[in-house]
């Protein structure tokens, strides 16, 4: 376990409702509706807590007919507090970490469910958005203009502007009506 994961785990556990959920799960596997009834919470609120517990690696889910059944991840819960607290930080360059955090903030601000809300005015942010759109294209593969349009248009209505900007930013190279992703 890395220090980042340990921090996520501790943050997740510092909530009475989530501790109550874990306590309930020690008595056996349960589904959302049953937990909601026991803890007097709404099912969407329980689902929200379960997502956090799952992300922290504390619970595991499985599908059983119409229900999602949750169980405790004993492999994590049976670790000693010493072992978790002594986790080493992930070996990532600080600068790289800051840049990735910034990138994620920009994506969160400008994208909603994979659709671009608006084209950022600031070039740095615009590039982040276009690089994300470029991930829909295979590098080196030749695309016809109509294919490029068909891929971009579900992401942003004004696909012509995006396509042109992506050429001027060097993300695409163009030869007539043929496009190739460069980076």
């Amino acid at each position: 376990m890395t220090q980042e994961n340990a921090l996520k785990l501790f943050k997740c556990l510092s909530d009475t409702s989530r501790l109550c959920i874990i306590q309930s799960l020690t008595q056996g596997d349960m589904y959302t509706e049953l937990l909601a009834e026991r803890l007097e919470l709404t099912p969407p609120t329980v689902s929200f807590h379960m997502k956090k517990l799952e992300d922290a690696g504390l619970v595991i889910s499985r599908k059983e007919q119409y229900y999602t059944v949750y169980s405790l991840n004993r492999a994590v819960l049976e670790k000693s507090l010493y072992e978790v607290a002594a986790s080493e930080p992930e070996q990532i360059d600080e600068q790289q970490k800051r840049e990735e955090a910034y990138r994620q903030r920009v994506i969160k601000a400008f994208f909603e469910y994979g659709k671009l809300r608006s084209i950022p005015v600031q070039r740095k942010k615009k590039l982040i958005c276009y690089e994300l759109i470029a991930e829909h294209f295979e590098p080196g593969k030749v695309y016809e203009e109509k294919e490029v349009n068909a891929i971009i248009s579900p992401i942003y209505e004004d696909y012509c502007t995006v396509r042109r900007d992506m050429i001027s930013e060097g993300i695409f190279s163009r030869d007539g009506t043929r496009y190739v992703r460069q980076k």
Partner: protein
Amino acid sequence: MKAFMAYLESKISEGKEEIIVLEADGRKDDGNFAKVRTNIYDVCRTISRTLADRPGAGIVAVKAQLDRFRTGWSAALEQAKQHDDIHAVAVEETKLAALEDIIAHFPEVTEA
């Protein structure tokens, strides 16, 4: 309309107390959902106050606005479900549950 406004006021006070209790109990996320719920009662109180007294608007306009909220939030809920966005689903369902409660009290209190 007076009774309706009093109902909204009581739900807002109740919500504010709930937020304090939940946060003190170490349930910050549940407290945030209580904030979302309380905010809906607050927003509806504001639009009810504004529209109900406006000439040419009145109670019908308030009800129409509540229905518009319902349409918009239901669409947002569907979108969140489609994308498996658990947090957004919980928020939209909380908003809609509060709105349904408000709508359920609307005719009842105005007829009285």
